[in-house]
């Protein structure tokens, strides 16, 4: 069995995807990046191999991406996460698309034409607004585990609650004020997710189909609905959106071995 792997060492999580010669996903892995990128890459890769029922010798090429892309010693090539998210998203939606990726410490908006060629991209400025870090900060403030934020937000009843500040520190002060006024945690959780969506979307003009990827969308399924409401347009999400970058990297690995997908 010939496999191709993509490893996305992100700021918060490391994701791995193994695909077969037909570009079907054979296995996926996930680990926290923490302070050992190489270790996280090994761990996520190991999980993906295990799920694929394969061994390392079955893997013909590995492409690394993400902030820690240079730390993956066993990768054969590396690409930026911009390229890999574009490739991964276009694989599932082969049309003119705009990819909105919301990660732990950054967000990216990537415009791709109908042929899969990247037209433009931009990343967030040096600021936590519009990233997963903002949600983590808010979860800390509300004293709930970050994985419960989605559940809380789903239970919100007052959609008029909003957080207006751009700066995360100011936003947390704003939340304190709302707690003092008696605003429910559920409504604050939703307001925080709306804030993330707004900060990402307000910096761009969107044309064509919007595809949302990244850990924030993966762990907070309500984000798709919020993005749609904020944008006033349909937003699609690929399978396993947190793994889109790793998927793109795996596609690059396969592409280098002549296993081009029809879309790429």
């Amino acid at each position, binding site marked *: 069995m010939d496999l191709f792997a993509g490893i996305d060492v992100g700021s918060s999580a490391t994701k791995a995807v193994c695909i077969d010669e037909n570009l079907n996903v054979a296995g996926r892995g996930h680990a926290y990046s923490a302070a050992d990128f190489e270790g996280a890459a090994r761990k996520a890769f190991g999980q993906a191999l295990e799920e694929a029922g394969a061994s390392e010798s079955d893997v013909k090429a590995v492409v690394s991406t993400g902030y820690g892309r240079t730390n993956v010693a066993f990768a054969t090539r590396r*690409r*930026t*996460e*911009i*390229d890999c998210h574009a490739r991964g998203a276009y694989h599932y939606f082969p049309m003119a698309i705009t990819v909105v990726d919301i990660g732990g410490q*950054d967000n990216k908006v990537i415009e791709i034409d109908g042929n899969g060629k990247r037209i*433009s991209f931009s*990343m967030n400025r*040096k600021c936590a607004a519009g990233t997963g870090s903002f949600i983590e900060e808010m979860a800390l403030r509300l004293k709930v585990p970050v994985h419960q934020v989605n559940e809380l937000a789903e239970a919100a009843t007052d959609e008029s609650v909003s957080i207006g500040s751009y700066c995360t520190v100011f936003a947390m002060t704003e939340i304190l004020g709302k707690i003092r006024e008696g605003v429910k945690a559920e409504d604050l959780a939703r307001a925080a997710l709306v804030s993330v969506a707004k900060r990402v979307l307000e910096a761009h003009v969107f044309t064509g189909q919007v595809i949302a990827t990244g850990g924030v969308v993966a762990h907070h399924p309500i984000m798709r609905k919020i993005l749609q409401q904020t944008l006033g347009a349909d937003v699609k999400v690929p399978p396993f959106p947190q793994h889109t970058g790793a998927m793109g990297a795996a596609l690059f690995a396969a592409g280098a071995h002549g296993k081009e997908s029809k879309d790429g």
Partner: protein
Amino acid sequence: MSEPQRIPARIASAKTMKKIMADHFLGIDAASKDPSKRVAWCTSVGPAELLQGFGFEVYYPENHAAILGATRKATEYIPYANAAGYSPDICSYLTADVGAYMQGYTPLTAAYGIESVPKPDVLVYNTNQCRDVQDWFMWYGKHWNVPVLGIQTHRNIGEVTREHIDSISGQIRKLAEDLEPIAGKKLDMDQFRESVRLSRKCSELWEKVLRTGSHVPSPLTFFDGQIHMGPAVVLRGTRIAVDYYEQLLAELQQRIDEGVAAVPGEKVRLYWEGMPVWGKIRALSEQFFELNTCVVASTYCNSWIFNQLDPDEPFESMARAYTELFIVRSDPVKEDYIAEMCEDFKVDGVVYHDAKTCPNNTNNRYGMPQRLTERTKIPHLVINGDLNDLRCYSEEQAKTNIEAFVEQLTEG
């Protein structure tokens, strides 16, 4: 077989430059200690030729601030000026320079054994760079109790009119009157004209040096330009700068003749719009090098091209040079300029540096990149950073953006 080149080849003339820059700083230091000599501080695009006409030794604090940045000392000293009321949001040349002075530090000590920046007899600014230079000079003026004089520029200039020129040349003439008692002598018109003539010559040569970048492959990069612009800034109006650029031009011409590229295997050619990130010259230079990408031209290095200077009309031609300057022009004029540069230098993409503390030299904030990309079909990238304050610069983000931009330009 020789090893593949890992870092950009050094320009041999740098050795000469190092020597003349050392002589410049040592000369000013000696002048500041000599009661028979007068020292003037001047902004980088200030009326240096006029000051030379009065016999002043001219010192350029923007150059000093850039050295603080390039030696990665700026970020250490900026907070001292912040604490004294100079916001982290204003010019980080000002805050670095003033903060370093407050702490008794200058990079000139390590480089040349000079104890302190030279105490001036007068500080002369031109607000064509920004209003911050005026505040910067006022701080030192108050500190040393010396006069601060200046030229107030026009901004957002579309067509340059007679009124603009008359206004600025009038201010320069007034400045000459005000400088006379400080210099203790009358303006030496012959020396003034000679300085203007040499400045013009220096400018022409500097332009030719930068124009070599239009050759494919380019014999120099923007990062070389950042280093080699030193004499055009601090020694214009002197024979030394003219001689230096003759030497540098000959070296670059030889590179072209021999097919030597600044970035071997040059695949992508970029234009840099905005300030340098002084503390990251080497890191950025090496990253572009590894990506087979050459930043072949910039607005910034072109800022010291003053081909309007004319010794027969020194006041008027200086006024014209300062008024036709990119930084004081309207967006349509700036856009025409960048579009022409992109064509002349055959660039594949434009990098805009959004320098947090330098709005005047940052041109991406009012839709210019989008307008120019639509017009020229040349893609652009914006990176967030700063000229001197590395607290405003995310190296990882900048690196990823640059790498992704080059991927975009080279794919398909």
